[in-house]
């Protein structure tokens, strides 16, 4: 009965935080967490994670590789509030203080399949040059009160940020019962009848 008339759809995301490009920094680690709407609930897997510290590769790429796995399953009744992964990268500064090196967020891909995403990262800027100096000196750079801020649009107009680098993510997305509930998320779905069409958003 449940299969015939599902009341929720499932979204399984696995993949990994593969690597990062931060030309200026080394010895970074990253945290990830998911931000999702009220109609969403994680059913399995880890919602949050913190990776090992990685150093730059010695080759030309100078890549910071984490290969930090993500594996989580959500259930939902409503595509509104589709999960976003929020990444924050930290690393030591010259004095050895842990400071934030970048925030970034991206939606989990809508359509099932394998997706690679490169997220540009940014950090909030100090409000003044003096602040900048002291924050550099004290090792207390401006940070977001909550990394999840970067997954929301509200209130961002008061901040100024600086771009830092890129993080590459790999997602493998599997959905279940989306089509049965009337959400067609793209060609990679089992039947592949219709072209890609975003799910109908619910008007706010």
């Amino acid at each position, binding site marked *: 009965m449940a299969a015939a008339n599902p009341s929720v759809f499932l979204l399984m995301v696995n993949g990994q935080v593969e690597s990062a490009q931060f030309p200026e920094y080394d010895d970074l680690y990253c945290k990830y967490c998911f931000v999702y709407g009220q*109609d969403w609930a994680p059913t399995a897997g880890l919602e949050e994670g913190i990776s090992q510290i990685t150093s730059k590769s010695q080759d030309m790429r100078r890549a910071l590789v984490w290969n930090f796995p993500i594996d989580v399953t959500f259930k939902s009744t409503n595509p509104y509030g589709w999960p976003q992964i929020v990444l924050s990268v930290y690393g030591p500064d010259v004095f050895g203080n842990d400071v934030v090196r970048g925030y970034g967020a991206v939606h989990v891909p809508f359509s099932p399949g394998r997706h690679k995403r490169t997220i540009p990262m940014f950090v909030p800027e100090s409000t*003044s040059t003096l602040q900048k100096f002291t924050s550099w000196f004290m090792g207390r750079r401006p940070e977001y009160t909550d990394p999840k801020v970067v997954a929301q649009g509200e209130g961002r107009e008061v901040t100024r940020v600086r771009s830092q680098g890129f993080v590459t993510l790999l997602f493998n997305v599997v959905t279940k019962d989306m089509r049965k509930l009337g959400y067609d998320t793209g060609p990679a779905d089992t039947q592949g009848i219709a072209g890609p069409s975003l799910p109908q958003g619910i008007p706010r």
Partner: protein
Amino acid sequence: MNPREEKVSIITEESTANDEDAEVGRREKSSKVQRQQRKKQPPRADSEEMVTGKAQPGQEEPEMHLLSMPARRGPRSLPPIPSMSRTGFAEFSMRERLREKLQAARSKAESALLQEIPTPRPRRLRSPSEKELETEFGPEPCKESQATSHRNDSQSYSRVKFHDAVQKIKSKPQAPPGFPSAEEAYNFFTFSFDPEPEEPTVKARAKNRDGTHQEEEGEEESPAGGMNKMVLNVIARAGTPQKDEEELLGSQDAKDFLLGLDPAPDEFVVVRPAEYEGTHTWLEKEKELLFFPSRRAVPTWKKLPENVQPRFLEDEGLYTGARPEVARAQQNVVENRLLRQEPERKWFGDDGRILALPSPIKPFSSRPRPLAQEPSAQAGLETHYKKAVKYVHRTQHVVGSADPPGSFQLDIDISGLIFTHHPCFSREHVLAAKLAQLYDQYLARHQRSKAKFLTDKLQALRNAVQTGLYPEKPHQSLDATQKTIKEYKSEIRETRKLRDAEQEKDRTLLKTIVKVWKEMKSLREFQRFTNTPLKLVLRKEKVDQKADEEAYEAEIQAEISELMEEHTEEYEQRLGEYRASYQQWKAWKKAQKAKKKKKKQAEEHPEGEAEEELYPGEEPVKPIPPELLDHAVLEQQARERAAHSRRRPGEPVLLPELSLTGSVTPDDQCPRAEVLRREDVKRRSVYLKVLFNSKEVSRTVSRQLGADFCVHFGQIFNLQIFNWPESLTLQVYETVGHSSTTLLAEVFLPIPETTTVTRRAPVEEVEFSSSQHVTLDHEGVGSGVPFSFEADGSNQLILMTSGRVSHSVAWATGDNGTPLIPPPSQQSLGFRSALKRADAISSIGTSGLTDMKKLAKWAAESKLDPNDPNNAPLMQLISIATSGESYVPDFFRLEQLQQEFNFVTSEELNRSKRFRLLCLRSQEVPEFRNYKQIPAYDREILEKVFQDYEKRLRDKSVIETKDHIDTHRAIVAKYLQQVRESVVNRFLIAKHHFLLSDLVVEEEVPNMSSEGSGILGLSLFKLAEQKRPLRPRRKGRKKVTAQNLSDGDIKLLVNICRAYDIPVRKPPASKSQQPARSSRTFSDRHAASPGAHSPPHSPDTPLSQVSVRPFVEVSFQRTICHTTTAEGPNPSWNEELEFPFRAPNGDYSTASLQSVKDDVFINIFDEVLHDILEDDRERGSGIHTRIERHWLGCVKIPFSTIYSQARIDGTFKINTPPVLLGYSKERNVLLERGLDSVRSLSEGSYLTLFITIEPQLVPGESVREKTSDLLKKFDSQEDEKLLQATEKFQAECALKFPTRQCLTTVTDISGKTVFVTRYLKPLNPPEELLNVYPNNPQATAELVARYVSLIPFLPDTVSFAGICDLWSTSDQFLDLLAGDEEEHAVLLCDYFLFLGKKAWLVMGNAIPEGPTAYVLTWEQNHYLIWNPCSGHFYAQFDTFCPLKSVSCLIGPDNIWFNIQQYDSPLRINFDVTKPKLWKSFFSRSLPYPGLSSVQPEELIYQRTDKAAAAELQDRIEKMLKEKIMDWRPRHLTRWNRHCTSTLRHFLPLLERSQGEDVEDEHRAELQKQLGDYRFSGFPLHMPYSEVKPLIEAVYSTGVHNTDVPNVEFALAVYIHPYPKNVLSVWIYVASLIRNR
């Protein structure tokens, strides 16, 4: 492609069919060539052949056929030809023949060409094949020569060989690269032939060929023909099997053999001059061959079928679209060609033109133009400075877009306005207006003086007649003179009539003026006052009586004579007429007589009779001879007329003169009605609106109406315009007082001529009138209302408001004197009509665009093509507008296609429960704010989800009295709810307004000011600090952000340490009562004099007895834990109790947690063991005891306090009932020593507690922090300077003592920032409280404090969840009957100020409330600290004072911040005059500006309805009894009525004494009445807010929790009403067990 190919093949067939002789020729020729080839053995043969080949045009063709022959041989067949005998021509020389054939073939081909189109394709295709053939033949001869070397041996063999070789090449095209295969391939691929239709003919030919061996081949000259062969070759090869071909080969061979053997003419070489054809012949030939289409236009009839008229679709109203541009000549050429080629005219349309689709070329490119140069992209991004220019409308409706875009100016000068009638006119005014009007008329007439002019004219005419009658020089013919005189005379007549009329008019006008003036005078006399300054003076002009009389007489004589003349003339004429008719009559009479005679004669003739009878009516009347008028009669008439219309001779000429010199009666001499009218006039003012193209552009100032009803404006409006004006309108508005403005009338001004320029324009007057009906209650006559001048009301008049506007409209002139007029061409009709076609805007004006009907009219007039897609939207619009005549939408649809894209109707969408749920959640409606996982389908959403919400919406208006027994409180609760909602809305808006600090955590900039200069250094120093100090400081617990939590994650830890002074049991049997405790005086209690009070010793208390076995039960969110039982009145438990915490709706957000209303109840019970062993004999073997628990007291701590404080640590006073039956305070049990004695002074029991939440929650922002943040977001009415000062003050204070809270501004209930001292002001407490102890100020103070404490407590954090602290004023507080510490403290402080005390508001920290407000008063020599919520007061040095720290004091006129080292009230000095200890806000530098209070002047108290209170009391009692029964579902609950009534009597006593000093009497009384009962009970006291807390309180005592079988209960409720509906509730609960 295919059809064309077919065509080509058809041509081939035709040509082959027709050219059989040519074929023959060719065949023969080819044989000749073969012969030549045979002759090739000599090396020169080659060149020779070349020569011959060149010499003959078209000779190369045969060579080609060498190649094609073998292939053709198989399928080639000729149709049966009748003229086989052609072979006979072989006798002629070959060339001759060939030429002939050529000619013939050419003509044939030409004819074929004329029939069919010579498609260029075959021609083009031919050339490669031709070329290849030539080159290919190069090596061929060599092969041939090799082959021919053997030919002698066997010709046939070599022949076969040769064919084979060719065949091989053909069949294997790829074998030698670049050889025939290429050409073949070319043919093969370029011709997509169709073998099907070909095959039958091929077969037929094959058959024929089998039959006939004579093959004649002619060369086909036409390129098509040549090509066709190729086609056939290929076809043949493809179509026929190999075997068949070989078969045929044999027969062919035979023929070749024969030809080859023929020795005759081929051996000769004939040398001839090169053939030359003259240019003319060439041209001739070309003419035959080529077709040049004519460039001349083709007549239409040729292009259309016969007898068909051209039809022009466009004229029929069908849309045809624009044809693409093609040159006319080009078109003609095409038409000519088409006519020639395809006579069926299918390429021509009905209109005789070539069919064409509309031009697909758009007028403009839809693709953006590529950047011209890539590298210049940079240049494109450069910024250029361009000076800002004023935007000038360049659209079509701008007047003369070619003209300099100057604006034009129209000057409207409104000089004034005069009412000719106004509702406020008095009767006199009406007359005055009439008089003025008449006078104006008179003046106008006088100026024109038409009468005089006519008189002069008459005179002149008479003179002329005089001279005409008696001419001095009769140079004119007589009849001409006669004629002129006649004309003159008639003119005289006319003029005289006119003059008479004019004179009469003048005279009547004068008469009317006089009459009106007389009326006015009489009216003035009648009403005894004058309203108008009008005055009429009639000036008499003396005339010379004699001359006048003479002139008069002469005039009359002249007139009479003229009349006489006229009459005679008339008479003459009439006489003539009469005579004529008389003659007639006579004749008739005669005839009649004759007839009569006849009749007599022929009486027998009936027909005569009949005839006679036919004319009886025709008898003409006998004409009456005209009478000659008597002279006297005429004179009489003339005189009469003159008297009527003319001034009598000798009568003085009257010249009226109207002046405004009269005096108006002043107001004080007028009757009341008139004064009213004048006042009304004064209240009225008038202004004009100027409307340009029916849009208001400006208006005049509003001017008061003068007493003379004139308004002078004198304003000039300069209208800067672009368009030629469509209309100019003035609207007259009248304002009465300050109220309504009414539109009186609209005046349409004419648009001035282009010649009228400012300063030359005359001032014109335009009349207006209004249709309004006004009736006034004073002397004013009103408008549109009948009134009368007569006393009896007859002769009614109805006058409408009317007046005149004097204005002038003119075009302004520019600086250089040029008038700023739109070009006159704009108005000229021709121009407009021309434009009308093109542009709707210019023809109907801009404003017309909004008028659908106008637009439709324009569309009809301009004959828009309705089928043109360009006009489609316009036509649609018009059709919509005109179809429903009445329906013209008065709206503009923004997204007209929205309807189509709605996937469901909006009703359906609204019906969707899921959608509704999503909407409500998005709106953050409290019920749904945290709704998780909204189901995917409607059907899964239960209707009851909405029930609560809908109920709440319904209840908004309906006052629910179920929860609130008292209606007033229900109303208040509703009000509170509304206030809360509005504040929540404000807050929600503010919440979405983010500050940087909300998002980004950033270190503060180290303060560089002189005071804090060390801070940066300090922090630098910190860097050098060791990361791991040897003596680590205690670190705070890790705080958890609330969002990630879920149920069960949070625990509430309650650590019960110990208690002091628990009441101890009294021996139940003890009847000996303690003597009543000395009633302690007020001063006793706070006098910090240890030892002053000696507690009474009860002599009979056995020391050995276990006085009490207390345990603590803590309940939170319906979870109950209790400690072990300890012993003694000072027990120590040291136990930690753990409670799970569940947030409402599972929402762990800060706002939600702050609004948790749950309380932690800490109840202290005494565990009593009762031996219930019935039989003493069993005492040795069994223990039967019953555990009873008796409630001793409770401590209630709200969760919100715990949450905001993070931990609560301290000793709390246990809330014990004033009377605890069976218990007493046993102070004497323990020895009095030092501290204990101090403690004992503040009577009561105490409990030491430690409460916290695990894990520690981030308290979000504490309410006050949030306040300060939000304060910036809320607005304020305070002075900006003051606000800056407060910020500065707060910053300074925070710098010194960051933990001490400094309060300067607070938020009032409407969300505005208010300076805090505005709340403090003496306010009167209720009268009756003051009257209780008139002579005891201290008692009064206590009573007042009690009154304040009876107002229910409701923390702001709860009422305004997640929102800042709001301070309501005292009247609001009393109306709401709910508030938190601030409101209580403010009210108490205000009361104390009223009582004449020195009182301050103390802001500080207390337990358990946390940051709170207390009241400090200065008594004679000491300070008292009052807890406004409990009504208790403490001395400054009381150790159990809950106030633990003091941060600032607030007085009515200043704020003092505590800058002492300590903040505990025990250790500080409250003397605010010392600036070293207290930092004051207002000082010498900033003096107190005298801020007005926000509090009301006086509080008004209503007496509470006693009956309602009694009713409430009964209801509560009933409800509680029911509840207790409910709580004991398994047991019978008996009520002891006797006890209840006793208790009920006792409760008012308690109220009166405030719970003191009555215990013992009460106990005695109870003992007396219920001696055989063992009972425990206690009264509960609390302020009344709702029923629920009462029930909770009763429940928490656990009285109902006895399961003794024969237990009885007693419950009594007493409500004491205080003013303003403040109710004090007493509940007495007791359980009784009968002693046996």
